[in-house]
Each structure stands twice: as C-alpha cells, then as structure tokens.
C-alpha cells in the first residue's frame, strides 16, 4: 500500500466508519436465503456431478458382499487388489484391452495433431481457389449425423479386411473437422504471415515452412487438440462395438460392457474396471481442465 493511500485512509475516518457499517449490512444480507441459496444449489449440483465418480472409486475398493450390504459402503475399503484379481479371472484380456485403448488413443492423437495442423495451416495461410467453399464444407461435416452411415461403414471395414484391427479405430478418425477448424483459428492468429513469406523468400519449401516455422509456434493449440483427440478416441465405444468382435481385440469399454449381466453381476470387479478405465481421463482432466475447457469452447464461440 502506498503512502498516499495510507494518508487518505487516515484522513477519511468517517468514510471508514460507514465502511464498517456497510460490512455489517453485507453480513446481514448474506444470511438472507435469496443470497446464499443460489450458491447452495450450485454446490449441490456440483456434488451430484461428482458423486458417481466418488462411488465408483469407493466401490472399486470393496468386495461384492460389502457393496450389496445395507447401507452401502461410503468410504474406501481394502479389497482393491482382490477386485482386480477377480476382474482378470473373469476377463483375462482386461489389461491387454486397457493397453489397446491407450495405444489406439495415442496413435489417433498423433495423426490428428499432424494432419489437422497441416490442414489448418493451409486454410489459414494460403490463398487458393475454392478455399472458402472447402472450408464451409468442412464445417458442415461436423453437423452430419455419423450414425446414419453406420451399417455401410461396417461393410466397408469388412471389404477392406479391417475388422478386428486397430486400424479401423485409428484411421477413420485420423483428421477431425473440429481439429482442422481449431488449428486454422489458432494459426491465423498466432503465426504472422510475414514470417511465412520471409521463409519462402529464403528458399524454404512449403512443407518446410509448416514443419520448421509453424509447428514450433502452435504449441498451445497442439496441446488442446491433443487432449480433445485423446479423450474422444479413448472413449469411443460405438466404433469399437461395430468393428471389434474378437475378445483379444476388445477395447476397455467393450470389456466393461461384456461384464454386465452375466449371471450374478460382480459389482466390485466392474467398479474396479470402470475406475481404472476412467482414471487416465480424470488425471488428464485434473492436470489440464482449464486448457481443455477453454479450447473446446473457443472453437464454439468463434464458429
């Protein structure tokens, strides 16, 4: 606090007194339901949002009998290892499936980062015939209901013999329209055109400009797109349901789904499997939630 401010405060004692009064009034007002009730409702809603995650992790540490008892466990137990043992006994491929899910998500993310930034670079930095029409077309594809083509998609996969292979889940989603759009927005605001022109003057090839000039400048957008692609691909259930029929090629969501409704439901094992499937997402989210939320909504606002 500066000296002048101190002096000002010392001189204006009447004002300070009213200040104190207004603080009291503030406190009184805070006790009125119309003041605190909205906060309480927002917090209650937030609890409802988090509760399923909490119970998932709690149930993952309890045996089936404990979960089925009344009242159900509300705090962590000690049966986590047993649950995983049971899960592996029920589905020997479980860990393989988790690995497969992670691998597919990583590969799809790498491809998306490369292809989307390349496309976004072209849309942001070049003048070429049909550019605006092509871009409008790209945006329109985001509104197409993907489900309508589901059955021919499976037939196509069968024809090119991609059923039960990871390619079927990596390649079709290797360059998302959203990613190209996000990259175009970011590159046109973050990369100066003069820099690109100067590099071209100096004899840098077009791909060289992308690789040496643009890529090093778009780290934040790459981070956002990487998160979005990874989460989307990791959570892809319908795609896996359509193309994977052999147990060895099941991704984590498919294994979880296969545990459901086979005789007596093993809630402990299911919760443990669910928890381990969701864990990478929760970790990513805790680390990067702000960037993820901002990236996703930035795309929507500018569009």
């Amino acid at each position, binding site marked *: 606090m500066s000296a002048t401010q101190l002096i000002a405060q010392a001189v204006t004692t009447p004002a300070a007194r009213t200040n104190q009064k207004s603080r009291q009034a503030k406190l009184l007002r805070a006790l009125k339901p119309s003041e605190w009730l*909205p906060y309480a409702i*927002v917090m209650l*809603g*937030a609890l409802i*949002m*988090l509760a*399923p*995650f909490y*119970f*998932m992790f709690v149930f993952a540490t309890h045996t089936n009998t404990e*979960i*089925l008892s*009344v009242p*159900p466990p509300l705090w962590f137990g000690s049966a986590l290892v047993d649950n995983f043992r049971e899960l592996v006994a029920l589905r020997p491929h479980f860990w393989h499936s988790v690995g497969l899910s992670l691998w597919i998500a990583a590969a799809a993310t790498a491809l998306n980062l490369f292809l*989307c930034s*390349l*496309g976004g670079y*072209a*849309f942001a930095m*070049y003048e*070429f015939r049909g550019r605006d029409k*092509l871009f409008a077309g*790209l945006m329109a*594809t985001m*509104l*197409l*209901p993907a*489900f*309508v*083509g*589901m*059955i*021919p998609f499976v037939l*196509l996969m069968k024809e090119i013999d991609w059923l039960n292979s990871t390619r079927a889940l990596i*390649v*079709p989603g290797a*360059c998302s*329209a959203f990613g190209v759009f996000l990259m175009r927005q970011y590159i046109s605001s973050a990369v100066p055109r003069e820099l690109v022109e100067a590099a*071209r003057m100096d004899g840098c090839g077009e791909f060289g400009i*992308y690789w040496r000039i643009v890529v090093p400048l778009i780290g934040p957008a790459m981070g956002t797109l990487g998160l979005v692609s990874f989460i989307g691909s990791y*959570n892809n259930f319908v795609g896996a349901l359509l193309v994977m029929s052999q147990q060895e090629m099941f991704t984590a*969501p*498919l294994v*979880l*789904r296969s545990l*459901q*409704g086979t005789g007596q439901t093993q*809630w402990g094992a299911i*919760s443990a499997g*669910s928890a381990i*499937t*969701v864990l990478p*997402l*929760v970790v990513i*989210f805790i680390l990067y*939630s*702000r960037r993820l*939320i*901002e990236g996703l909504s930035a795309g929507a*606002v500018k569009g």
Partner: protein
Amino acid sequence: MSAVLAPNGKPAKERKRRRLKPWQLMPYVFVAPFFILFLTFGLFPLLFSAYASFFRWELTAGLGNMKWEGLGNYAFVLQVNDLPWSRFFSGEFWSELYARDFWRAMYNTFWLGIVSGLPQHLIAVPLAFFIHTKFRRARNPVIAMYFLPYITNTVAITLVFSSLFSRDFGVINQVLTGLGHLELFGIHPLAWLFPAQNVDWGRPEYTRPIVSFIVWWRFVGWNTVLYLSALQTIPKDLYEAATIDGAGLLQQFRYITVPLLRPMMLLAVTLTIIGNLQLFEEPFILTGGSGGVGQVAETVAMQMYKVGLNDGDFGTASAVAWLMFMVIAALTWLNNRTLGRKD
C-alpha cells in the same frame, strides 16, 4: 490436380502459363487428408446407406444379391397401411401406432431427447449466468466439476449408475428413504416428498427417466461451458449502463443476456438435437442392449443397430437410418428458423 498440371509434351509457352507454383499447389495437398478420410469413411457410408435403403438385402447374400425394393423398405418400417386411421382422435390409434417398432423407437427417442435435453439448457443458461456474475476465485473449480461428466467414459459411468440405482443396495434409494425417514422434533417433515420404501428402479416406467437423467448429467456441464464462453464475449459496459439505468439482475438477464446469447443457443440446441436423436450409448448400456422391458428405452439408433447388425437386414436398417436422418435434418432446419431468426 493432374488436369491442371501440364504434361511434358505441351509447348513450352503453354506449360509455363499452366504450371502452378508450389504455394499454389501445396495447400491442396495439405487439406487433402481430411477430405479423403471424410469421403471414404464419412460421406461414402452415408450415401451408400441411402442407396441400400431401396434394396432388399440380407447379410448372408453378399453385395451381388441386392434386390430392388423401391420404397418397400420404407413402407415396411413405417407400417402405416393398416392403421385404424378412422379412429385417429381416440387413444386406440396411438396405442396401435406405439405397438409398431419404428414408431415406438421414434417416440422413445423424442421422449428421451426432450426430457434430457430441455433441462440441460434451462439449467445451463442461468447457471452460466450465475457463475459468470457471482464467482471469482471458485470459478474454475466449479466449472471443472460440472464439466467432468462430459469427458468420462459412458460405458464405465453408466455401469456405475446402474449400481447406484439398484433397488436393495443402491445409494440413491438409501438417500431417498433416508430423507423420507428424517425425523425433526418428532415429525417426519419430508415424508410426503420422499418414498418410505425402496423404489424399484428396474420397473419399466423408470427406465426412460433414468436414461434421461444420465444424459442430462453428462451434458449439462458442456452446455454451461458453451454458454459461459459466449457470456464472456458480451461487453461489460452494457451491464454497467443497465445498472445505472436501474435494471436489476433479473432484468439484465432477461433483456441483455438472453438476447445476446441467442447465437450460442442456436449452436448448443443444434448440437443437442443432433446428439439426442442419435442417442445410443446410455440406453444401450443401461438396458444391456435390449431396450429394457417392453423396449421402453429402445431408441431409433439402437433399433437400427439391432435390425442391421443383429438381424442382418441391411435394407431395412438403412431405411431406418435415412428416416432418422430426415427427422434430424428437419428439426435442425426448424431450429435454425426459430432460434436463428434475425430481427
């Protein structure tokens, strides 16, 4: 592109004129991956299903054995010929309609779509406004808590929900009956609101509400984030001017926020319509793929999956798919006309 590039045999003058500089050619190469992938894995299946919907075509027969069926598949799906049209205004007509697979699935899809979708927006808009105006330090954690459901694995979390909704040991029943039995000064103040006995959530009348709740739970935070990001673009001086003019918070919300949020509402509602009409994962997992007792939660997308890939009847499934497409297109257009109107 080969048509634009001059072949070597052409006269030098023309070749010079026609040859593209690398910066004229390369952008096409750079955007090509998206369009190649989209045409192959997106548009081709979409159009092929339109084509296939006019053929009778069984899984075992293969591509060579498609039989022209005309609009037969559509007629088979819609089954409108022998409906009791004369009793259109009585309940009998509608229960008869509900008994037909496609119409029941359509009804279920709309039921789930509206009951899960409408509250998403009715809650997300005020919630976003409240967070935007009232929260400072706690802002990001609160948003993150609401947003977390959006990024989780549907299969895992739907399985968790099905245990939470279990009749005898489910946490939700414990909470509800606990509140019902709550005793304050010798009376049960909440007994009228909450059940005394455990609710059997497995009964068919609860299936759709539970699915709707899960869908709502997953997407309300996403919509809140969309609206929040739009709120940040509204200039602050508008609110300041309104405050000077004596407008309260509710008036500011009604006359500044809501009109200026209209473009984002258009986008968010469009995304909800497109997503909800293709609803598949939540009801599929919750009902074990069957649609529940009496198929009360079987959506159009689930029916398409069942007819096409379980029964192997591709023609009929494609007709279902295209009927769904037409409904989505019509609703998107209608939404554009109402929310997107400029005045």
